């Protein structure tokens, strides 16, 4: 992907909307935590249609940030901007800046592949590679990035599968096809695949929406475990899930960030009426 495809317009302060100003006036909920993503003035278009408007947000490190909002509010688009996956959609275009621990992810010299090595992703629909075994699925990211050392790969495979709480279930079947697992196991396999390359961040795009409550509970436990080592950003439609497993919550509505703060605060005493209406189920 050619970085030149994405015109980086200089930041235009006069374009800041009231919402952005409101957002920037938020108390730095991440004050005690290091900031992982620093997003400034992010706007995204698909063709002529703008889907994200002047968003400004700081996502703290080593914690779980949930992104909630009704369908079509730009949650997934926002998430995909964080590892430059939105560039894969033809006609997608963005302005603004996203910094990861101070590094500009959209600087013209930055290779999107390297961004995605640092920022892994788990998708809504579990997608283990159908031609690969369970074991191969886990290490494919390392192998195709040039790692050849077999013992190192095996070590990483076990470590990733253990972290994904899948090792005990599959350790005797590592050569079986990845798609022979159940839906919940497949999703944990995808998480193992994402953490095997040891990224700094894991993005999750509605990882439980196709799973039953038991498999969902396992993934949520896993998220709780993973935040010791990783920064996690999770998009979810399930408000209870956001409440259960996130430390911070961002509420998006119609492409704008309405409110961002500690999850307890957002769920019990939000600043914005719209946040409260959405959370209490009055719309969306």
């Amino acid at each position: 992907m050619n970085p030149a495809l994405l015109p980086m317009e200089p930041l235009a302060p006069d374009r800041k909307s009231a919402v952005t100003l409101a957002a920037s006036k938020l108390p730095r909920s991440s004050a005690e935590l290091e900031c992982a993503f620093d997003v400034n003035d992010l706007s995204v278009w698909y063709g002529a249609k703008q889907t994200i408007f002047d968003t400004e947000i700081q996502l703290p490190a080593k914690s779980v940030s949930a992104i909630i909002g009704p369908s079509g509010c730009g949650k997934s688009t926002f998430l995909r901007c964080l590892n430059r996956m939105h560039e894969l959609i033809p006609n997608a275009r963005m302005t603004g800046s996203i910094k990861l621990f101070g590094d500009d992810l959209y600087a013209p010299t930055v290779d999107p592949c390297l961004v995605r090595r640092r920022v892994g992703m788990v998708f809504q629909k579990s997608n283990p590679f159908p031609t690969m075994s369970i074991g191969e699925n886990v290490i494919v990211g390392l192998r195709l990035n040039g790692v050849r050392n077999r013992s190192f790969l095996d070590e990483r495979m076990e470590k990733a599968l253990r972290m994904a709480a899948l090792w005990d279930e599959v350790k005797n079947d590592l050569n079986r096809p990845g798609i022979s697992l159940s839906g919940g196991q497949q999703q944990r396999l995808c998480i193992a695949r994402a953490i095997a390359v040891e990224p700094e961040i894991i993005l999750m795009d509605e990882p439980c929406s196709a799973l039953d409550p038991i498999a969902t509970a396992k993934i949520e436990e896993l998220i709780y475990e993973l935040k010791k080592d990783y920064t996690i950003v999770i998009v979810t439609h399930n408000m209870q899930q956001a409440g259960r497993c996130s430390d911070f919550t961002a509420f998006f509505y119609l492409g704008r960030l309405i409110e961002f703060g500690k999850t307890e605060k957002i769920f019990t005493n939000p600043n914005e009426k719209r946040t409260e209406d959405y959370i209490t189920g009055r719309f969306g």
Partner: protein
Amino acid sequence: MTGTFSKWRKVKSGLVSALCFLCAALVISPLGLVFFHLLREGASSVNWNFFTSLPKPVGEPGGGMANAIAGTFELLGLAACIGVPTGVLGGVYLSEYGNARTNWLLRFICDILNGVPSIIWGIVVYGLIVLQTKTFSAYAGGVALGFIMIPLIIRTTEEVLLLVPNGYREAALALGIARWKMTVHVVLKTALKGIVTAVLLALARVAGETAPLLFTAFGNRFWNHSLRDPVAALPLQIFTYAISPYDDWHRQAWAGALVLVSMIFVVNVAVRMLTRSRSVMAK
């Protein structure tokens, strides 16, 4: 009232079913007739000799089409060398890289090329190679067949690759894997069976072509020892024998036709079995 109504409805339903059955039978019957006729006329002349010996002069009993069978495989090999890499890579370009406008143009061109009568390809290669080298040759025939394969394989490869769910591409790219590695190790690997099928079907299609070989490979009554010499091919030999006035040559032509149709039949059945055992997507 309900009685007559339901009766009439049953009659209509029966009529439509019968019509559909009739049309299906019409579609299938030519294959059955051709195969049956070939068996009746040709089976008696297909024997060990047919596969192992060279054609005999008129009037001499025995003789076979060993050189033509070998020649057909030789030509198919040459055609595959040209058609498979170009076709598969072209299909990869269409499905993975091209933008909407160039893709539209490429597809349009491929579809036109697929409709070009095969004798035109013969003439093109005659002008490009035979006239330049001043001799009919095996590789001219291979090039002609390869040209026919290219647009066929491009289109089928593209369609098979488009069946690979986008989720696999995204999953690979999200691991920081470079795009070309993703294409080779994930997309092509996932669609491998479909591509093999496409290639085999294209080979089966050109195996029966006669027209493009008439003035490229030309035909040969003896073994072919060099790619620069004319080479025999089953369809060519059948053509030559069928238009001859000799009865024993006619019988040989029937036998050749039977062998050719059986070969294509076997390839098609093999492809069906290959794709049925595990579907294209393996899912």
